[in-house]
């Protein structure tokens, strides 16, 4: 590869080095995209190119990258692994369950978690290699099985991680975060196995042409299974990282991460058709995704538009790579040893095209920047990390928070964690990078928000918890309505309407979420006071209206004579109303929770018997008001209760 021929060694060497760097960039579409992205973000946001933020990006990329390394093996064999997110969650749960619930020492619990991942990979691999199932189907099944098992083992609740394990999320020597270290080690291992180990080379052969590999003496089945086992093992590592960072293992963690992992692998230049792919490319792919998420946070791009921008960049990054290949440059071949005897400067042929695509990437980021949330300016800045915006309750909470911020002349940035505790940790980190004066956290999970909030408090940034508390960290103020109390109120209202007699079914929220647990607990406690009322069915509908409709329909099949329905949120209650049709409000009483505008209308219309109305707007308002107060150095209040009340239809 050395280009210099010895004369004028210094100058020639430097020039050759520069040329090599340029060629490396142009020969590798994903790397170009990453460099362009970093450059663009550095220009657009002063907070991006700081040591701390770059460390954050590394930590935020780690879990996706480790998952993606595993998926790289599988994709190289022309397979696909959809189960990695669930397997990561299951492994983390097994770790926490062994270490916390059963008190196993860490040195035993960690191998147990890894064994869980290996086991899942072994099962998927065997189904594919021996059962001849298509990889898509086998791993789709594993996705569901692992998710289910993690809920079974954890009984639906997050499990705390013992202290020695939580340090895995810490920083070594003050500058190297452990997750980044793990990511780099996993990457080197992956590169080593793919590039140098027999099994890796065999995987390329299998992905390139399975029949030819078989006829050349490659044990196809064995190496396929190895690929899935490695994928499972790395998923377990990612699960441990995820849990360590949150100090808690979440049964719902890693949901949808498989798609991020696959995107990272493909952005990194691998082909879903198999036979092509490298660890370095996958790392770049994961970094692109992390840089993008981080950068869009820093730029305060509206959370809704973030999805659009990320999708566009995924497509563009792969387009860039395809264009490069079509232009005829040497492909990022399966570990070609790089004896660059190919004609020089061939990459020039496609340069205009590449530059064009690069320009589009920059344009996408700039457009993204233009889509920032409106910026009222001003001195005080508050960050609000919401658990989700996929629910009217939180949309209202956000609206209230905005109103308050505007009224106070404070700049408010809102992020949406999409019910993913790990995303939320990223968002809180990014708030710290932006040096917010105060942070409002609406935790996805009370336990998992702990480490991130602890970090903020350690930096002297006051934190207000909204709607749900934060455990394991001293939040200065909690602004919440009482879910358990609300559950009791709902039980009392339902019982009163049924005259203390009858059968009811309960639509539970997403298993493992605190709202589901607390409301369920309150309802169970409350209904126990009415021996005439029997709860005949409890099923989860994930806080989702469509699922609420389906689950209610199914429950009505087995319990046609139901008198009442309690839904742990209004969305599901409205779904139940739809399922009941004319019976809603006449022969069946439905009680919801939250008091969303739509539910309140339904109560007025008589189809919904009652809803336990929280006041999300008020909640948002109070949370921001308290955050501002703390930012100005006023003394904190421990808890701020937002009143909850039952809004009921006129009794018939």
């Amino acid at each position, binding site marked *: 590869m050395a280009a210099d021929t010895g004369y004028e060694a210094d100058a020639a060497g430097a020039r050759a080095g520069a040329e090599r760097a340029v060629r490396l960039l142009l020969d590798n579409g994903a790397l170009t995209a990453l460099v362009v992205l970093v450059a663009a973000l550095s220009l657009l946001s002063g907070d991006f190119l700081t040591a701390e933020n770059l460390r954050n990006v590394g930590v935020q990329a780690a879990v996706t990258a480790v998952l993606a390394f595993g998926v790289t093996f599988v994709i190289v064999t022309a397979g696909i692994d959809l189960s990695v997110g669930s397997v990561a969650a299951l492994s983390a749960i097994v770790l926490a369950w062994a270490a916390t619930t059963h008190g196993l020492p860490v040195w035993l619990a960690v191998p147990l978690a890894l064994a869980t991942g290996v086991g899942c990979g072994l099962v998927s691999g065997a189904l594919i290699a021996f059962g001849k199932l298509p990889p898509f189907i086998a791993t789709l099944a594993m996705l569901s099985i692992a998710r289910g098992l993690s809920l079974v083992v954890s009984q639906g609740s997050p499990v705390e991680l013992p202290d020695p394990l939580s340090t895995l999320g810490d920083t070594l020597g003050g500058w190297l975060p452990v997750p980044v270290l793990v990511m780099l080690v996993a990457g080197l291992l992956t590169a080593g196995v793919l590039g*140098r180990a027999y099994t890796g080379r065999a995987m390329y052969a299998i992905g390139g042409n399975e029949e030819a590999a078989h006829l050349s003496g490659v044990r196809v089945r064995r190496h396929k299974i190895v690929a899935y086992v490695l994928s499972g093992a790395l998923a377990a590592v990612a699960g441990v990282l995820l849990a360590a960072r949150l100090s808690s293992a979440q049964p719902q963690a890693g949901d949808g991460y498989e798609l991020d992992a696959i995107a990272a692998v493909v952005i990194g230049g691998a082909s879903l058709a198999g036979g092509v792919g490298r660890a370095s490319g996958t790392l770049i792919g994961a970094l692109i995704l992390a840089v993008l998420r981080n950068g869009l946070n820093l730029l305060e791009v509206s959370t809704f538009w973030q999805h659009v921008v990320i999708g566009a960049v995924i497509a563009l990054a792969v387009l860039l790579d395809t264009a490069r290949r079509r232009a005829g440059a040497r492909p990022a071949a399966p570990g070609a040893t790089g004896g660059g005897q190919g004609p020089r400067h061939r990459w020039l042929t496609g340069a205009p095209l590449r530059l064009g695509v690069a320009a589009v990437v920059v344009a996408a980021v700039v457009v993204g920047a233009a889509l920032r949330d409106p910026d009222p300016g001003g001195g005080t800045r508050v960050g609000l990390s919401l658990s989700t915006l996929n629910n009217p309750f939180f949309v209202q909470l956000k609206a209230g928070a905005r109103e308050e911020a505007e009224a106070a002349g404070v700049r408010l940035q809102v992020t949406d964690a999409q019910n993913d505790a790990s995303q939320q940790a990223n968002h809180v980190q990014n708030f710290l990078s932006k040096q917010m004066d105060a942070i409002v956290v609406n935790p996805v999970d009370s336990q998992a928000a702990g480490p991130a909030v602890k970090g903020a408090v350690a930096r002297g940034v006051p934190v207000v918890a909204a709607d749900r508390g934060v455990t394991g960290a001293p939040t200065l103020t909690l602004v919440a309505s009482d879910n358990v109390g609300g559950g009791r109120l709902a039980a009392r209202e339902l019982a009163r309407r049924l005259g203390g007699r009858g059968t009811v079914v309960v639509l539970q929220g997403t298993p493992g979420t605190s709202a589901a647990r607390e409301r369920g607990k309150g309802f169970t406690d409350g209904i126990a006071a009415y021996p005439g009322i029997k709860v005949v069915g409890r099923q989860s509908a994930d806080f989702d209206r469509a699922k609420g409709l389906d689950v209610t329909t199914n429950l009505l099949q087995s319990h046609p004579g139901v008198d009442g329905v309690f839904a742990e949120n209004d969305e599901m209650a409205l779904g139940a109303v739809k399922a009941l049709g004319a019976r809603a409000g006449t022969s069946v009483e439905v009680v919801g929770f939250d008091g969303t505008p739509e539910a309140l209308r339904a109560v007025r219309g008589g189809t919904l018997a009652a809803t336990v109305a929280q006041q999300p707007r008020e909640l948002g308002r109070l949370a921001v008001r308290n955050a501002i107060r703390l930012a100005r150095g006023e003394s904190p209040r421990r808890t701020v209760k937002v009143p909850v009340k039952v809004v009921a239809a006129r009794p018939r």
Partner: protein
Amino acid sequence: MVPQAEPDAPHVLRVAGIRKTFPGVVALDGVDFDLRAGEVHVLLGENGAGKSTLIKILSGAHRPDAGRIVLDGTPVRLSGPRDAERLGIATIYQELAQVPELSVAENLFLGRPPRRLGLVDRRRMVADAARLLDRAGVPVDSRARIRDLGIAHRQLVEIARALGRDARVLIMDEPTAALTGAEVDRLFHRVRALRANGVAVVFITHHLEEIAAIGDRVTVLRDGRSVAQVPAQTDRDTLVRLMVGRAIEQQYPRASSAPDRPGRPLLSVAGLTRAGSFHDVSFEVRAGEVVALAGLVGAGRTEVVRAVFGADPYDAGSVAVLGRRLPPRDVGAALRAGIGLVPEDRKGQGLLLDASVADNLGLVTLRGATRAGLVDRAAQRAAATRVADRLAIRTVGLDHPVHTLSGGNQQKVVIGKWLLAESGVLILDEPTRGIDVAAKVEIYRLVNELTAAGRAVLMVSSDLPEVLGMSDRVLVMAQGRIAGELDAREATQDAVMALAVGATTAHSPTDPADPAIPSDPADRAHPADTERANPAEPARPGKATRTSEATKATRTKATRTKATDKTNKTDKKGDSDGR
């Protein structure tokens, strides 16, 4: 005979100075070519000479870097296949561009179905298709699914489709490669009818004997240049010389030393049976000899060698190397015992097409180059370089994907990986199918080298001159059984064919010696030749022609007739038992 195009017929198409480069390769470097209405113009050249690139340019799939394309006296720019189609240029590729799951009618009107009120008018489509098929003389139901048609009928459907688009120029890329003799005849009949109607046909074939039968003029391409334009009646030797740029004195350079000093048996197969595929197959292959496995397509030859190699299971019998029995269905064991298989389907079974030449060459030896789980890639690469030099594999670089190589060079890569593995018994399944003359000879030389070094070769081949010219013994299979064994030096093509079709002759509704062979004009040009093949001499053109046609003619019957009774005809020392 058939009306031939007038020499002064108007030029439909003329290309001049066409140049096309791909990264690292100059595919075409100054090609001139012209086409008159009502002629069949044969494009001839070795694989890699640039025929495919030229037709891709004519069909608008590639754009030339330089040169002119003149259609009816007007220079045109073809910027896509649609352009070519609009101008009346239709192309029938070797791999047919059809949707197997759709009906014939839907394929005929693919992309432009008759519509009524914005919806596809199925009834009209079926009727139109039937009319079109009728006009083209294609005996196919327009409602049949393409998947259910044989390759010959699929081709005819493509011709009908071209007619339906009023093609004035029809480009056919190796249309006869997969056809039987009778089917070739039917195809030629259709092509002559097109020619009579003034359609200009560009015809590509590797079968030299077909040139005189169907062609009017021949343009020879070599290394991306058009080197000559000659009449189709030009004799075979001249054509070969033009193609390769030198005479090939010895097309089958078998240095048969084996029979004089037979080596020890390397591979012994006894009573190998798999229900429905092959029955009681026994033979041995000795050190230093080449054993050919001849027979019709479908006689079970590939099935037997795959079972011997452990790629497929068998029900009874045994395979032993140097007296040590191999476990069934275990490629690894066969490999360790020193058997290598160059499969029939190069692209589908032999190569990792997107992987580099070096990776392909090193695939079999990967295991051996592994220490403690890690592959010694430097050693692998050195070995690949060595074998690439030895085989004179023509490539831009060992890091380039193997699919950028020509067919002959790809085949050398497949063989090369077994050379690296130093296989004692090399099984070659149709080793020279679809590769050019020069590469063929190089492969034959390699076979000689291997056997001279005491190794053994078992070769499945449908090319009779090759079977007789390159082997020491010939085993003929028919209907899954060994029908007989012949000494290659004494065998004739007739004797081999007699054994190959022996079992079916009595039951066949049409005699193998019937119309297919005499009706072929090639035969008229070269009267039947029953002389014994002499492996020391190059096969005569006439002989090659006739027998390969005969082989094809009988292929249909082998697949059509399912006679199950044992009517093995033994010939000479023919004997189906192993020793």
